[in-house]
Every structure is written in structure tokens, then in C-alpha cells.
């Protein structure tokens, strides 16, 4: 099954070129430094604080192109925020930590635990992601990965151990027998599979939303709405971007037992129909193999970085790609489209972290952690005045889509449109289901805008996969949750 999925998805892949309007420059590292990036924070003076796979935090000065060691010894830090040039909030496997230099020598001398009130089973897949600063309150959002049955748990764990599917003893001694029952990805210690809020003043943990599998990316859109990515796998037919609101369930059931007043059923015994009723579907699907296999951090595009200010970008691990998002609210529900933004060229794979500097250059941090990906960093700058053709906006109408291009367009060319959906089930991934080409009529609205009227009614919970041959990035995928009334 896995084999078939990989084959089908790769077949649809087409090589694309780097966007000519953006210059991608690789950042140099000293020899001997493991440059797998877990997080990037931009300081107001343009310097960067970067945390790395081996637990160190280094400061990079783009003016002198030099690195200096600030802190060390962290356990897989995967996100960093700057409070000042000498104080950073970092999420690492065991905790959310404030790392600061209090004596002004440029080296960290305090590692203050802000919050460690969540569980650790010792399973390698229990990564911690974030932190994302809530500008309204000063609190932080973090997200906790579930465990993978690629490994059991440790003898000693931190936090309450949940024994709904198997006992701790069974997991330790009869792993081969019980791993199927436990689930492909599992949550046996508190808040695995959750997005959480950590209160600024008290460090108190507030459970926020659940149903996540591998939420390696948190970001706000221009209106301050929270978006979190998740990775294809069990219960995820394909990778997703979720619009996260407090109390929502996003589909992966492993996290359910950590809800209040949970009834105690092993998560895998809950009927899919019941889960389906509870869950909030994703705002965006990223078709596996063709668009993204592991989407990462969403970031808002500022003014000064080309024509897409106000939209979001999101990284992708498996290939050298950054994706652009075009979101809209329809009938009160967030949904929208994804389109490649920069592909290949100088950009390495493993685009794990993205951060805009004060000069509007985009810094990317790359990693792999032994999955597909790469390492190092790049700086991406918009080449002022360089034009290119791409879809700038797509929005849904009652009978199709309105598509705007960046530049005037004489001919649309041979536009292809297909639609498909993905299964919601415990199995790993999903083929593209109920796939069919869709006929349409394209009506010109202006020199660069077209109305696509479909020959069949729009279908909810389907993905509409456009290929625009005249665009730099032809593939544009719109996930339909809601259809506006005429």
C-alpha cells in the first residue's frame, strides 16, 4: 500500500524552476558545525539567533557573516523567539525555556524553565514545536508531537502514564504484541497531540486544541488567526494546514484521552463516524507527493518582499520548496489554496523554519533529523522590479473559482482542472480518491482576472487541482470546505 502511494504521488511530480524574481543565497557555516536548524529568531538590529539540532544557540551577524555561540546543551530545540538581544524563549523536548545572558558577556548564564508541565514518554517522536508569541496577551503557543510506534517508551517517563490500550509494563516487555493496539502514532503522556497555550506570567499550561499528529509549524495570518500544519500519516490522508480555535478537535484521535471528562475508550476503538462528527477539517490540504509531504512553519509575508504581502508562506521538508497560501473565509470557515512559491534552484530541501528580517529578507533554516531534507540556511531576497507570472489570488464562487494573475494575460493556455478527495481513516495516508477531470468555462473579467465556471457543481471536502501553464508555478490546489451561496 505504501509503495503504491509513493509511486502514484511521485508520478505526478514535475520539475519546476526557481522563481527568477527571488535571489536565494546560502549562508556559510564553520566546518564541524551541525547546521540542522530548529529555530530562527530575528533581532531588531538584523542579527539572527538560531538554535540547532545539537542543542546550541548561535548568533549570526549578516553584516560580518560571523557566528558566535550563545547557549548550548539544549535537547532538540525546535523553535526560538527573541525577547531582546540577550533573552530568548526556546522550546526544546523537555520544556519551554527562557535562555538569557544576565551579565552582558554575550553568553547565556540562565536557563529558566517557563513550563515543563507536560508528559514525556521518552519516545523519539515526541518533539515540541513553537513557541509562537500571542501578541494580544504575551502568552506563547506550543505544540506537542505524539509518539511513534517506530519505538516504544522508556522505563521512566515524565507525567501521568495512560494505560488505555496497553499497560506501561506491556509496552516495555511485549512491544511487538501490543504496538498495533497502541496505534501507529500514540499519546500515552499528557497533551501529546495538542496545541497548548503557556501563560506569560505564571507558566501555566492551558490546553488549547487537539487532534494533531506532527504539528511542526505554528503561525498567524494577517488577521491574527492561528494556523498549525500537520503531517500526512495515520488519520491524515495528506498533509494539512489547520485553522486552530480553542477547543477544536483536528482529527488524530490519539490526543482525545487528554480532554476533560474523557470516557476512557482506547482511541482506536472510537468509530470513525463519531470522530468525523467531532473534527474540524483542515483549511488546506497539501497533496502528498505533488505539493508537499511534510509542511512546516507558516509565516506572514511582509510588505517589501514582492507582490504577495499579506499572504502566508509555508516550508516543506521533503523537497526544495516553499509554498504560498491563499486563504479566505467562506461562510465563516477558513479555507483556501496552496501553490509552490520557490522551487529548487539554490534552495535546499528540508525547509523547516522561516523568518523575515527587518530588511524584508526571508531567512530559511533547513533540517532533516534523518528523514528527507537537508541542512544549513539561506537568505532569500526579492529582486526589485523583476516581474513574473503567477496566480496572485484565487477565491471560490458559487459555481467555480475566480482567479487573478499577477500580470496581464492574453491567453490562459491549456488549463487543466481535476478534483479529488482524501480518506479519513486510521491507515497511513490516502490515495487521491474520486479523482476526475473537471470541465469548465473560463470567462475573462479583466486583463488578468478570470472566472472559471465549472461544468459540475462544486463539491465540499474536495480539492480542486488547477494547472495553469502560463504561470511560473502552474499547480494551484484549492481545498473546498464551504461553498458560497449565489
Amino acid at each position: 500500500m505504501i509503495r503504491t502511494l509513493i509511486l502514484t504521488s511521485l508520478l505526478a511530480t514535475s520539475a519546476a524552476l526557481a522563481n527568477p524574481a527571488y535571489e536565494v543565497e546560502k549562508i556559510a557555516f564553520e566546518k564541524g558545525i551541525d547546521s540542522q536548524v530548529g529555530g530562527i529568531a530575528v533581532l531588531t538590529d538584523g542579527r539572527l539567533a538560531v538554535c540547532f539540532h545539537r542543542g546550541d544557540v548561535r548568533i549570526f551577524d549578516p553584516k560580518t557573516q560571523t557566528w558566535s555561540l550563545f547557549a548550548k546543551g539544549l535537547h532538540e530545540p525546535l523553535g526560538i523567539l527573541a525577547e531582546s538581544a540577550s533573552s530568548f524563549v526556546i522550546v526544546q523536548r523537555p520544556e519551554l525555556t527562557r535562555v538569557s545572558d544576565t551579565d552582558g558577556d554575550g553568553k547565556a548564564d540562565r536557563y529558566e524553565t517557563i513550563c515543563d508541565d507536560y508528559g514525556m514518554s521518552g519516545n523519539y517522536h515526541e518533539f515540541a514545536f513553537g513557541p509562537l508569541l500571542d501578541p494580544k496577551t504575551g502568552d506563547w503557543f506550543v505544540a506537542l508531537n505524539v509518539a511513534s510506534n517506530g519505538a516504544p517508551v522508556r522505563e521512566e517517563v515524565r507525567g501521568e502514564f495512560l494505560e488505555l490500550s496497553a499497560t506501561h509494563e506491556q509496552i516495555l516487555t511485549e512491544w511487538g504484541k501490543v504496538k498495533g493496539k497502541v496505534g501507529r502514532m500514540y499519546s500515552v503522556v499528557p497533551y501529546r497531540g495538542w496545541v497548548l497555550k503557556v501563560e506569560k506570567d505564571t507558566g501555566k499550561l492551558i490546553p488549547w486544541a487537539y487532534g494533531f499528529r506532527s504539528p511542526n509549524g505554528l503561525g498567524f495570518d494577517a488577521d491574527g488567526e492561528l494556523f498549525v500544519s500537520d503531517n500526512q500519516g495515520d488519520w491524515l490522508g495528506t498533509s494539512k494546514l489547520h485553522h486552530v480555535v480553542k477547543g477544536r478537535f483536528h482529527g488524530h484521535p490519539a490526543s482525545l484521552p487528554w480532554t476533560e471528562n474523557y470516557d476512557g475508550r482506547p482511541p482506536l476503538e472510537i468509530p470513525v463516524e463519531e470522530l468525523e462528527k467531532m473534527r474540524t477539517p483542515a483549511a488546506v490540504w497539501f497533496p502528498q507527493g505533488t505539493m508537499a509531504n511534510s509542511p512546516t512553519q507558516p509565516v506572514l509575508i511582509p510588505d517589501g518582499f514582492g507582490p504577495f504581502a499579506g499572504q502566508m508562506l509555508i516550508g516543506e521538508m521533503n523537497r526544495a520548496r516553499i509554498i504560498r497560501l491563499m486563504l479566505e473565509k467562506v461562510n465563516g470557515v477558513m479555507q483556501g489554496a496552496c501553490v509552490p512559491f520557490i522551487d529548487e534552484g539554490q534552495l535546499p530541501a528540508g525547509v523547516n523554519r522561516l523568518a523575515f528580517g527587518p530588511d524584508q529578507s526571508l531567512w530559511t533554516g533547513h533540517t532533516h533529523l534523518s528523514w528527507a531534507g537537508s541542512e544549513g540556511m539561506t537568505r532569500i531576497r526579492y529582486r526589485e522590479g523583476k516581474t513574473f507570472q503567477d496566480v496572485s489570488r484565487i477565491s471560490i464562487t458559487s459555481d467555480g473559482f475566480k482567479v487573478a494573475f499577477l500580470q496581464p494575460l492574453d491567453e490562459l493556455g491549456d488549463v487543466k482542472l481535476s478534483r479529488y478527495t482524501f480518506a479519513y481513516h486510521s491507515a497511513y495516508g490516502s490515495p487521491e480518491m474520486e479523482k476526475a477531470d473537471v470541465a469548465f468555462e473560463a470567462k475573462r473579467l479583466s486583463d488578468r482576472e478570470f472566472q472559471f465556471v465549472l461544468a459540475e457543481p462544486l463539491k465540499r471536502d474536495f480539492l480542486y487541482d488547477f494547472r495553469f501553464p502560463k504561470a511560473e508555478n502552474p499547480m494551484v490546489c484549492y481545498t473546498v470546505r464551504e461553498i458560497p451561496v449565489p
Partner: protein
Amino acid sequence: MNFRSLISLLALAAVLLMPGTLFSQDKKPKVKKVTVKTVEGLRFEPVRFSVKRGETLELKIENHDPNDQPHNFVLIKPGALAEIQAASMAVTPEAAANGFVPKSGSILVHTGLLNPEQKETITIQAPEEPGIYHYVCTFPGHAMVMYGALYVDTKYEKDVPFDPNVPEMVRALELDKLKALVEVERPTFTRAFMPEAGPAAIAVALPGDLNFCWDAGNCRLRYAWSGAYIDATKMWNSNGNALVNILGDEFWNSGGGERTHGIQIGDESARTVDFKGYAIIDGIPEFEYRIDDVLVREWISTGTDGELSWRFRLDAPGNDVRVFAPETKGTTISSKIGSRDGDYWVVPQKDAAEFTLHFSRK
């Protein structure tokens, strides 16, 4: 008859004419069995191995990659690595239909595409030409880093960390292993998954050759060792699953499994322990935690006598302080202040604002 057939015929004649061959009791040809695993981090294990020319080789290829990656094993002619790496990047329907094995005259033999936990056995004759033959995974995106070297009647010139015929990533990994055996710059500290500790453990290397493991989950000192620090390469060169290896000799271990605290204030009833982090003093972390409302600071350093020195500072302990400090492996623990009570060292409340315990190895 082509040239190759002629050679085969001559070879057969040579075998037939070899003394003893015809009358040998053992009619089965000798088969060399080699298992090649595809493992985490896009690597073949072993990354190189050697055979004799013409030897019958039973190759068992097993996909052990825990990251859901399909792999194949494609044996190619000497010097063809770059060509096959480039060819494997083509993601076409034809390539997919052929298990992503590129069409090339440089390919000698290959397996199908193996999904995780699948295996395939192929039996081949080792090449007749001595040389270094690469084996490559041609699944798109893998070939640049995922290959190994089959040495046919050829001596290894260099150890793996320096062998230009194995991928740079593997060389770096092997070199790291060597480096890890060399002392780190002391003092230093590393949060990692450690043996015999909770998942929120911290390793510390002190000046001299002392090291210890402090558990930030239950806020207590777990064990101490002398000599080299830790080998973290497996943790660093993977998804982080591996425990670090303790490189030196353990001279003290508190035991106590999952006990939830290192010190008690007053009676034995359970207390809330809350880790607060650490400040760096002389390069060494001073751990901070609360036991109920009492802030405790714990700084473990190398004493003037070259032994572990274990300092406590407490803000307003309302009772006697009992430190869990069992004497194990011949190591004794004592202080000028207080007295021993079984596995505990007890410090009276009036002296408990600051006190230091001293280790003494056998």
C-alpha cells in the same frame, strides 16, 4: 562465440583441470552470505564490505529504515556512481514502473523497491574485475547520500571515517564516533535521553574527569562517573531516539528508579517538586527547583580534593532537610554539617540554608 563466452569456457576448463576439484566430496560451491540493511538516515549498513572476485554471493537486502522510506540496492560498475546518481533523479512514469532503477549499461544487478520491513535475497557472482563497485539506492532523492562500496579483491586503503568511497555523511558519522572518545572542553552540559534516568535528564562534565547525570524530571542526582564524558553521536545522527552512551566508569549510582524527589524537607510525605531551570556558575549549572514553597539550589562541582562537591542552598526550609544520598559502589558521602540516617544525609533546620556534601571514592 563472443569473447565473454570464450572466457567462461576457458574458466570452466581451468576448473575441471584443477586437481582435486572433480573428486571433491563437497559439490556445493562456497557461498558468501552478506546481509545489507538500509537503516535510518539514508544509509546502507554495512557501508562497505569486501569479496573475492567471482565469488558466489548471497546478498540479503533488508529495509530497516524506521522513517517509512522505500529503498533498493543497485550494484554498479566502478566509476559509474555520478552517472547513476544523476540518472536516479529522473522521476518519470517509466522510472517508477521500473522500481526507480535507471536504464543504464552500468548496472550489474539490482533488487526491487523494498518497503519498510521488506527484504529480498539475490544471489550473484562477484565481478571478475578487481575494483570498487558502488551499491546505490536509486529511489529518487536518495542516491546522492545513500550508497556503499563493494571491494572486489581490493584492500581497504583507509578506515571508514576517511574512505572517499563511502558517503561523506557516513564518514562524518564515523569520525564523530572517534571524536566522542576524546575529552570535551570542560565544564559542559548536555540535555539528552540518558540511560537509567527520566527523559528530562542532563549530563554534566566537570573540570578534571568527573561527570554526572542530573534528572530534571524528579529533580535529583542520579549517578556519577569518572573518565570520558558521553558519546552523543547516535542521538545526533538520528531522529533523536538513541540514548547517549556513558563513556567513563560509574563510581556512584543513587538507584531508586522512579522516586520522585532527591531531598525531603521534614517528614516523608510526598512533596510537590517543580523544576525551575539552572543558572551557570563557573560554567557549571546550578539547578533550581521548588519543593512545595521552598526554593532549592543544587550545585555539583569538583571539590579541591578532586572529588564531587554537592552544594545545597535553600530559601527558608521550615524543617530538617533530608538528602537522598545512599552510599553505593564504595563511594561515601558526608558533610561537616548533619548526620547520616540510612540512605539519607540529614541536616538540621538551623544549618540548612547552605550546606555541602562531599563524595569520597573508594
